Structure formats: structure tokens, C-alpha cells
């Protein structure tokens, strides 16, 4: 009884119908929270002691970076579940997650560059974290490219899962890169086990934005997965009924 929900996930149709009700809520809440967090951070939060107002980009930069890394795990783990339990839906989630992660990584790099110009004096430096984030971006692009290269969807899924799993070694490297190498990039201020070194007046909006981005990611992932379900199951009756209804 306890694992029934997991086995139901084997049915794309069940997933499609179940998530239809979640979408408006997820969308509304995530967009509201993003707006609220942005306004709180940009307008009402404090200016940073040394960097002034340019540090306010942290409210976009950190959430996109966090989601870029978390999104890779979502992609790799759904690939692993697909390989182990042979769940089509899991592969569809993996395929849907790849471009989202790529865009988030690009945004993290872009906002980081925009932040770096006034504070470090350079748009780009080749330090440990930025380099490993570029590697993450390339990994995402590799998965997208691999998905598109195979005519047989089943082979494409399995091959991409293997690549995604091999690439999982990169995430801890990104995370620890600021500790292992001398870098301009700031070390972690948000900590899980100790008191965070960031001031609460900046910390709370930042945590809110991270939560908001997680919800936003879930929303976009569900949207993309549902499209992928429709695409792959287009020959089934239930999809053709949906299409016929308009």
C-alpha cells in the first residue's frame, strides 16, 4: 500500500491527470514568491557593507546557482530511476530537466559576471567555481545534444542517463571548489550545521528566493514533462481525446 504511489508513476496518464490540478497553484505561488522576494531584497533589504547596491544581484545569482546544481541531481536521479525501474515517465522527467538546468546555469554565470564587473573589476575570471560551473553548463548541453542525436527514443534515454550519472561527480567539485582553491569567489555563507555568517536581514530574503526558485523549477519541470508525455504518448487514445477536445 505504501509504495502504490511510486508504481502509479509508471503510468504517464495518471501523472498527467494528477498534476493538472497542481499546476495553477505551483505557478501562482512560485511567481508570487519570486516577486515578493525580489522586491524585499531589491528595495527593502540592506545594501552590502563593502559592495553597496550591486550586491543585490545575490537574490538572483545564488538561487539560480543552487537550482542549477540541484537540477542536475534531479536529472541524474530520474535517469537512474528510469534505468533501474524501467519507468518511461522517469526518462521523460530527465529529458525535460536538461534544458531547464542549462538555462539556470547560464543565468547563474551571467548574473555572476554582471556582479563581478563592478566588484572584482572583471567580467570573467578562471577560478575554480566559475570553471566548474562552465563544466556543468557543458554537461547539460551534452545531455541535450545526446537526446537529439538518437532516432530511437529508448536508446536516447538510456544513453543520456548513463552520461548524466557519470557527470554527477562534478557537483561536489563545484560545491567544494571555493574551499579547495584560492579564489575570488566568496566561500559559503549559508551553512546547514553551523550558524550562517550572512546577516538575517539579507539571509531571509535570500532563503525566500531560493525556496521560490525551487517552486518555480518544479512548476517549469512539470510543464515540460507534461508536454513530453503528450509528445511521446501521442498515439494513445487518451491523448488523442485531449487533442480532439482542443
Amino acid at each position: 500500500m505504501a509504495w502504490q504511489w511510486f508504481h502509479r508513476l509508471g503510468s504517464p496518464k495518471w501523472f498527467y491527470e494528477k498534476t493538472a490540478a497542481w499546476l495553477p497553484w505551483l505557478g501562482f505561488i512560485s511567481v508570487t514568491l519570486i516577486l515578493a522576494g525580489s522586491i524585499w531584497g531589491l528595495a527593502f533589504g540592506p545594501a552590502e557593507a563593502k559592495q553597496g547596491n550591486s550586491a543585490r544581484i545575490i537574490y538572483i545569482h545564488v538561487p539560480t546557482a543552487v537550482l542549477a546544481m540541484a537540477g542536475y541531481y534531479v536529472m541524474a536521479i530520474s535517469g537512474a530511476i528510469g534505468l533501474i525501474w524501467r519507468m518511461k515517465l522517469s526518462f521523460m522527467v530527465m529529458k525535460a530537466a536538461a534544458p531547464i538546468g542549462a538555462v539556470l546555469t547560464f543565468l547563474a554565470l551571467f548574473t555572476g559576471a554582471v556582479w563581478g564587473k563592478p566588484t572584482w573589476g572583471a567580467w570573467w575570471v578562471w577560478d575554480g567555481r566559475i570553471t566548474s560551473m562552465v563544466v556543468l553548463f557543458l554537461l547539460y548541453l551534452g545531455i541535450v545534444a545526446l537526446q537529439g542525436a538518437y532516432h530511437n527514443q529508448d536508446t536516447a534515454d538510456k544513453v543520456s542517463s548513463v552520461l548524466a550519472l557519470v557527470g554527477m561527480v562534478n557537483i561536489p567539485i563545484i560545491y567544494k571548489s571555493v574551499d579547495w582553491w584560492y579564489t575570488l569567489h566568496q566561500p559559503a555563507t549559508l551553512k546547514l550545521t553551523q550558524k550562517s555568517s550572512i546577516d538575517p536581514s539579507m539571509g531571509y530574503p535570500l532563503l525566500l528566493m531560493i525556496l521560490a526558485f525551487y517552486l518555480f523549477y518544479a512548476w517549469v519541470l512539470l510543464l515540460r514533462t507534461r508536454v513530453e508525455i503528450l509528445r511521446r504518448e501521442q498515439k494513445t487514445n487518451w491523448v488523442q481525446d485531449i487533442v480532439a477536445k482542443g
Partner: protein
Amino acid sequence: MVETPSLRRAIWQSLRRELLLSYRHKGDLANPLIFFLMVVVFTPLGISEEPAMLARIAPGMLWVIALLATLLSLDGLFRSDFDDGSLEQMVLSPQPLACLVLTKVFAHWLLTGVPLTLLAPLLGVMLQLPAGGYGVLVMTLLIGTGSLSLIGAIGAALTVGLRKGGLLLSLIIMPFYVPVLIFGSGAVKNAIGGFPVNAELAILCAMLLGWSVLAPFAIAGALKISVRA
């Protein structure tokens, strides 16, 4: 009832087959080396022939070109076996696929990585590599090309079913090459500057050991997927 050969015999026969096939196509052996030479010739022509400038970029350039030469040689790693059906036989054989695969990659390293490493000091002279760098260059290339072959074989196994898998292979494999390149060329640069290289060499060895344990399973899984496609 045919007796299954022992694993030791299977590995030895597999290695012998790779070396024999390569011996019969000696031209293929030379291709990465000629590529290495060609791009080393392009470097001063395209960038600058000033000795001071060449000496500064030599460690990195030698590593990058060796890496690219390895990358080019990877497409053919499983291709001919895939085309004539022997890859399918390997997958179906009672021997553990991971071991057979490790043997193939080892043969690839012997036939590509080692010759590139031996050629590198010669080309280092052409690029004005400073005196302290040669020993470490050879050491890091020897260890590093092992990792490059292992990682590259994962890409080769993933793309062996594609007609034009070559460029895609390079794209999916290059992100994993980044740490090997950073530590390999970093060690050579440190050696030239007179700094200790123990840390970089240790990390290169650790990467080689890690990949030699993990990669065969990834390669075997990818081969099974590609063969069944």
C-alpha cells in the same frame, strides 16, 4: 561442451587481438602522432614564434594538443568492432564485460597515450619548453593519458551506435577532461617554476585510479545499450 576460458586467458587474448589488429593497420597508429606534430607546428605560426612567448605557453599547448589527439583517436575505439559484430560477441560472452572493456582501453592507451607521451619531449623542444618541464611533462602525460583513454571510452561507448558520433563524442567527453588538463599542465608549469609537483601528481594518480574503477562499468553499461539499439 565447450569449456569457458579463464578470465586471465580471455584478457590476454583480448589484449593480443587489439595489439595484432593495430599492428596490421600501422597507419592508424601514426595518425594521432602526426596530428600532434601538425598542431605543434601551427602554434608558433599562428600565435607567435618568439621564444619567450612559446616558452610560456608550451606546457599548456602540449597538454591541450595531446588531449585533442587522444580525443580524435577515440571514435574508432569501438567502431570497427561494432560494425563487424565482434562487439556484440563481447557483450554476449560469459566473461565480465567490464574486464574486457578495461583491456580494450588499456590497449588503446598503449597504442595512443604512450606514443604521444614519448613524442611530447621532442615537440617540447620545438615549442621552447624550459628545461625543468620535460620530466614532469612525460610523467603527467603518462598518467593523464590513461585517464583520458578511460573517460573517452565512456563517450565512445555512448556514441558508437551513431553514424556521425565523432563530434558529439568530443562534446560530451570534454567536460570530464577539464580536471585532468588543469592538474596535468599545472604540474608542468609548477615544475618549470621550481615548485613542488607532488600534489598535482597525487591528484592525477587518484583520478586515474578512480576512473579505472568506475569507467569500465559505465562503458559496459553504455555498450550494452548501444549494441541492443
